[in-house]
């Protein structure tokens, strides 16, 4: 998926005035935040699990080459093939070649954020393939020509009416002539249409929540069962996964699965957790004839071994965005790329480069709620601050901010001068504002006063009063 051109600020501005979007994201707040809180409250071991989850990921990342090679060995032993891609372009090429070799015409996809990251659908469609997303949410955004606005709930920005409008327009081709009125009817249409696609699919592409080195398995987690039909019925199963998805053993995966369902949805488990390992066995009655895994770097090794390594712990649960007051104000599309919210504000500049995502690290109050709920304890505010530091060092900070901060820091290092300047200015401001106690507008402060009054200073500065008090003693 290409990175949106216009600024975060202008996208956020439209999002704030989009009433339908605001209604939709309000539901996130009341629904998933509350559900997660209940799930966590019901589990005294949750904190210990977070520690264990972070430790598993840290251990694996510290020996990532060892575990990936072990994982590869097991996949091969089970008859599968492992492909390694340095970047998005190479990943797309590998997948296109597998599809071409299979003589594929129809590709069905399970939900995979990394496939969004490498912009896979467009590449396959350019080769003349029919590509159908099977997760109901992904199907809807694909049909609408949009991007997912949340990594777990792609359609969180859409109301039932929005979907009904879309299907009324687009599902006539499948014989659904009347407008569906309920969510159940709309999903019924998706079920009917996709059932045919699964059977027609030459290639099924899924993501991976985890890769298990012990067994060479990939694990996918769904509630719909779409990923399973995708990976079972197509002739060829391709798994797309970032290299950071590997964990050592099934026991490690079990720890992380407990964290994932609770953090993502506030549930103990999802309906389906599936381990796929290699192609169908010789005497199996179903399953794919070929099994391919595409391991994708695409910027991940640049995070490995450095200050940003903890970002590679991410298990893509979405809890950070569900709890982010900025995400909950502006929605996922404002972030402009595949990954929104706090994790996206780190990943987008890390993968796509600062120049493509200059604003994201700043679009955050550093309030820390994301870190508080992160199942693998990623210090997201700290990482965002580090990105700001990189931007400062590399000259990506706009001149006004840079000048303002530098001037202020200069003054802050000269206490006497600072005291003299503020000792003069503050009483004047206080006097001007003494009657109402506030200003409706102030020169150079329009950012503040556009929506807020500026409280007036109470009087002289503390230090001026304290100095006088000391002199009087």
């Amino acid at each position, binding site marked *: 998926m290409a990175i949106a051109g216009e600024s975060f*600020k202008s996208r*956020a501005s439209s999002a*704030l005035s989009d009433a339908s979007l605001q209604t939709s994201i309000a539901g996130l707040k009341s629904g998933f935040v509350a559900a997660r809180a209940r799930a966590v409250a019901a589990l005294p071991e949750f904190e210990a699990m977070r520690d264990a989850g972070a430790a598993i990921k840290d251990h694996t990342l510290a020996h990532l080459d060892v575990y990936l090679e072990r994982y590869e060995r097991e996949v091969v032993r089970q008859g599968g093939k492992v492909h390694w891609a340095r970047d998005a372009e190479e990943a797309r090429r590998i997948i296109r070649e597998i599809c071409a070799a299979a003589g594929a015409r129809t590709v069905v996809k399970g939900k995979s954020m990394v496939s969004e990251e490498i912009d896979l659908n467009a590449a396959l469609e350019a080769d003349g393939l029919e590509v159908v997303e099977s997760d109901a949410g992904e199907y809807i955004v694909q049909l609408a020509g949009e991007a997912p606005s949340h990594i777990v709930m792609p359609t969180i920005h859409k109301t039932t009416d929005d979907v009904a409008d879309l299907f009324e327009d687009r599902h006539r081709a499948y014989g659904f002539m009347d407008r569906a009125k309920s969510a159940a009817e709309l999903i019924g249409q998706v079920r009917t249409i996709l059932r045919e696609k699964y059977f027609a699919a030459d290639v099924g592409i899924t993501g991976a929540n985890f890769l298990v080195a012990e067994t060479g398995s990939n694990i996918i987690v769904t509630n719909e069962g779409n990923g399973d039909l995708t990976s079972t019925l197509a002739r060829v199963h391709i798994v797309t996964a970032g290299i950071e998805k590997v964990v050592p053993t099934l026991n490690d995966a079990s720890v992380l699965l407990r964290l994932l369902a609770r953090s993502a949805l506030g549930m103990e488990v999802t309906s389906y957790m599936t381990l796929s390992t290699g192609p169908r066995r010789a005497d199996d009655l179903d399953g794919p004839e070929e099994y391919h895994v595409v391991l994708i770097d695409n910027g991940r090794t640049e995070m490995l071994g450095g200050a940003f390594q903890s970002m590679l712990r991410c298990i893509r649960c979405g809890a950070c965005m569900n709890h982010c*007051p*900025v995400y909950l*104000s*502006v929605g996922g599309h404002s972030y402009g790329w595949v990954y929104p919210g706090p994790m996206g504000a780190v990943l987008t500049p890390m993968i796509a480069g600062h120049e493509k995502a200059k604003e994201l690290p*700043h*679009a*955050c*109050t*550093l*309030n*820390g*709620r994301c*870190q508080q709920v992160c199942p693998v304890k990623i210090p997201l505010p700290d990482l965002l*601050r580090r990105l*700001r*530091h990189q*931007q*400062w060092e590399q000259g990506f*900070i706009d001149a006004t*901010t840079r000048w303002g*901060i*530098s001037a*202020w*820091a200069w*003054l*802050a*290092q000269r*206490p006497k001068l*600072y005291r003299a300047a*503020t000792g003069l200015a503050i009483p004047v401001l206080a006097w001007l*504002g*003494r*009657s*109402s*106690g*506030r200003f*409706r507008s102030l020169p150079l402060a329009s*950012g*503040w006063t*556009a*929506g*807020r*009054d*500026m*409280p*007036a*200073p*109470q*009087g*002289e*500065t*503390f*230090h001026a*009063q*304290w*100095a006088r008090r*000391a002199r009087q003693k």
Partner: protein
Amino acid sequence: MTGDRASQTNSTQPRVGLFVTCLVDLFRPGIGFACVKLLEDAGCAVEVPAAQVCCGQPAFNSGDTDATRRIARQTIEAFAGYDYVVGPSGSCMATISKDYPEILKDDSEWSERARALAGRSYELMAFLTDVLEVSPPETSFEGRATYHDSCSGLRSLGIKQQPRTLLSGVKGLTLTEMQDAEVCCGFGGTFCVKYPEISVKMVSDKIGNIDASGADTLLGGDLGCLLNIAGRLKRLGKDVRVLHTAEVLAGMADRPGIGDGDRD
């Protein structure tokens, strides 16, 4: 040296250096004097080193780590020799106690001093409750208040119960918890002027929760948040008083609230 009152100190009193914070210095000195009163009532000798300005957080959060280091060293120097450093802001005190040691950890000359300062630096409410273990002060305040948990104090320093415990002794005050008390008000330092629309949306959500709580007073422990919330409340014409917890606890809440004038 301004404010050097060491001569009055008797040897058993803890010597506390007050970190005023720049917002309190400029906008609401009364909070600083409330701190002094609370600390002195608790038996501390309070001094205000003149060489302090700001903790450096605006530079740190904007990415200018070098400037932050210089300001940190100045602050460490200014507060050398005190038994404790205490300030009326979880945000500034978290910068001193969490961020200074981190940004100076590779500086052989300063890393130890940064850690030492961090080890004796406290946010006011936490200091009174956890270190001095004072009983809730006997004072009175007529009002139905709700408390906003500022993010840095809450998440970096674990300040949650301390102000509530102290406020529980205030006669005439009822404290009603609002929905989402722990959710950011949208201040976020420079965020509030860089992204005013988002910031105003966030503070408007906060005000919705304040309204729903039925409170006539909003209390908090960080002036940045309080200026933001008061600024929006006043713009919306809401009749809610905004005060720092220290002002109420020190019995110094008889003056106009934040953003209120003589005529309010």
